[in-house]
């Protein structure tokens, strides 16, 4: 922090009249956040922009939409489609299950230790992804997994004979839910804690039933943070690769795995098509976020 050697001037600037003093002060103010913005620019924004621009260029560096059109070939489209479905299913299941668990531990009258134990466990499980998670599900629901074998020997139900496969849409979704639910719990519990007791009492005083209280007070208040978390979960699943890669190898062609293979070995034989796939990923997570902002401004208007 050697670049911030003008403390006296900065302090004096506070009491000095605005105008001239302000103009003098501004540059030193900005020096304090320069390392952060430099870091963000060099290692977050520019690399991403580089790919975005590359998606709209051909090998000669000319502008083209060819790469974007090339995304609409069958195998890439299929990869996007299964990624979107897995992310959507796992984020919705995770969100509703997580909300149910959060409400149960905050409002359900369960013993206090359950609440803190659940929160700690959620912190752990939301970070328990990748290879270890994939393997845990192989050991549970794989062909020789504990649950698979137990169901077969105890109930005589062979889930694989009934079409279940861990290396499939549902298999991946069930696995992803393992880190989606806890993430929801971690984020939504503070929001539920924020529901004031007085609101419930006020609603009851006005003669509202429990159902009305939920429909007209709780849900509108929780809605923005709930929706925001769903979007976060969606992006979380959409970019995840290690879990799926460990689980299915490359047999389930989701977008991150396709992109991974492309970065490793240019399997699509077109570098700029790789950029376009990356662009598509950001486009989808970005679109999800725009929806979120739009929803939130709408619901905030209602809240006022």
């Amino acid at each position, binding site marked *: *922090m050697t670049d*911030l*050697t003008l*403390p006296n001037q900065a*302090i004096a600037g506070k009491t000095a009249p605005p105008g001239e003093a302000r103009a003098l002060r501004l540059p030193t*103010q900005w020096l*304090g*956040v320069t*390392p*952060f913005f430099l*870091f*963000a620019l060099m*290692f*977050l*924004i520019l*690399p*991403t922009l*580089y*790919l975005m621009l590359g998606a709209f260029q051909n090998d000669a560096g000319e502008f083209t939409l060819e790469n974007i059109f090339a995304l609409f070939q069958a195998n890439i489209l299929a990869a996007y489609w299964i990624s979107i479905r897995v992310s959507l299913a796992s984020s919705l299941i995770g969100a509703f299950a997580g909300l149910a*668990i959060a*409400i*149960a531990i905050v409002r*359900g009258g*369960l013993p206090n230790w*359950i609440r803190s134990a*659940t929160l700690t*466990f959620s912190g*752990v499980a939301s970070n328990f992804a*990748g*290879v*270890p998670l*994939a*393997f*845990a599900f192989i*050991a*549970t629901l794989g062909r020789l*997994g*504990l649950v698979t074998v137990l169901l077969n020997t105890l109930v005589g139900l062979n889930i694989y004979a009934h079409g279940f496969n861990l290396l499939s849409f549902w298999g991946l979704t069930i696995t992803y839910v*393992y880190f989606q*639910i*806890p993430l929801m719990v971690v984020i939504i519990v503070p929001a539920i804690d924020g529901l004031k007791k007085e609101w419930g009492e006020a609603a009851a005083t006005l003669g509202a039933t429990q159902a009305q209280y939920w429909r007209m007070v709780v849900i509108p208040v929780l809605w923005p943070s709930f929706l925001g978390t769903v979007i976060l979960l969606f*992006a979380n699943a*959409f*970019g995840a*690769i*290690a879990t799926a*890669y*460990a689980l299915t*190898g490359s047999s389930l062609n989701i977008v*991150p795995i396709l*992109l*991974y293979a492309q*970065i*490793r070995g240019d399997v699509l034989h077109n570098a700029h098509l*790789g*950029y376009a796939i*990356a662009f598509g*990923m*950001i486009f989808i*997570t970005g679109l999800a976020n725009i929806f979120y902002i739009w929803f939130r401004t709408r619901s905030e208007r209602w809240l006022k």
Partner: protein
Amino acid sequence: MKAGKFWAWVVFILGAAYFFIPLIATVEFSLRMRRGVYSFDAYKVVLGDSQFQTTFMYSVIVAIFTILLGVLIVVPTAYWIRLRLPQLRPVVEFITLLPLVIPAIVIVFGYIRMYGSNSPLPFLSNNVATNALLVIGYAALALPYMYRAVDTGLRTIDVRTLTEAAQILGAGWGTVVARVILPNVLIAVLSGAFLTFAIVIGEFTMASLLNRPAFGPYLQNLVANRAYEPAALSIIAFIITWGCMSLIQVLSRFAPKSANRPN
């Protein structure tokens, strides 16, 4: 209210079943290496594997450097935003949330294309620089968590008064940040640090695409080639994550609860 309690138990038990059965199955599987009896053979094999030791140590060192870099970037910034540039807060918060929107694989893809051997900043031209790039990438991934943790910590102290007091005593900006602000938010910084550690230690995508000999790629390789060892490693990974989270929990008990002057 009684019915509510009943359903709360149902939800809780269903959730607990979903979360514990895979863990139990993995533990059970990890103990089956020796035919017919339960044993810790898989753990012995894994822990004795020299490749496990080197990749794990590598990831631990990378995690430590990531934490240092994260602290170095986040603490002065969050402090400065609170003290002097509150109008920039939305911008900085937006940037710190970007890694949640831009997938890690896209970020590292950008690095590979931008910082290749022929570029002006050839991070990929030698081992040391590539290791540095991995640390940088991880710091970017951990940015949302680190910033959130530090900012929460700063909220509980009176930044302005502390700064002015330190300055009256003749401290420069470096001293203020390193010896006044940092010790006061140390607990918040540490919880951000442990979260970073938990994220970095088993990370696969960046390490693999930058060809680093890290723990995540090693794990991945093991899953493809072995049966019982990955189960043992999954349990070890879970215990490490658990350890990090418990430390955060313990630390948060020492953190100051109320804001002296919320701003």
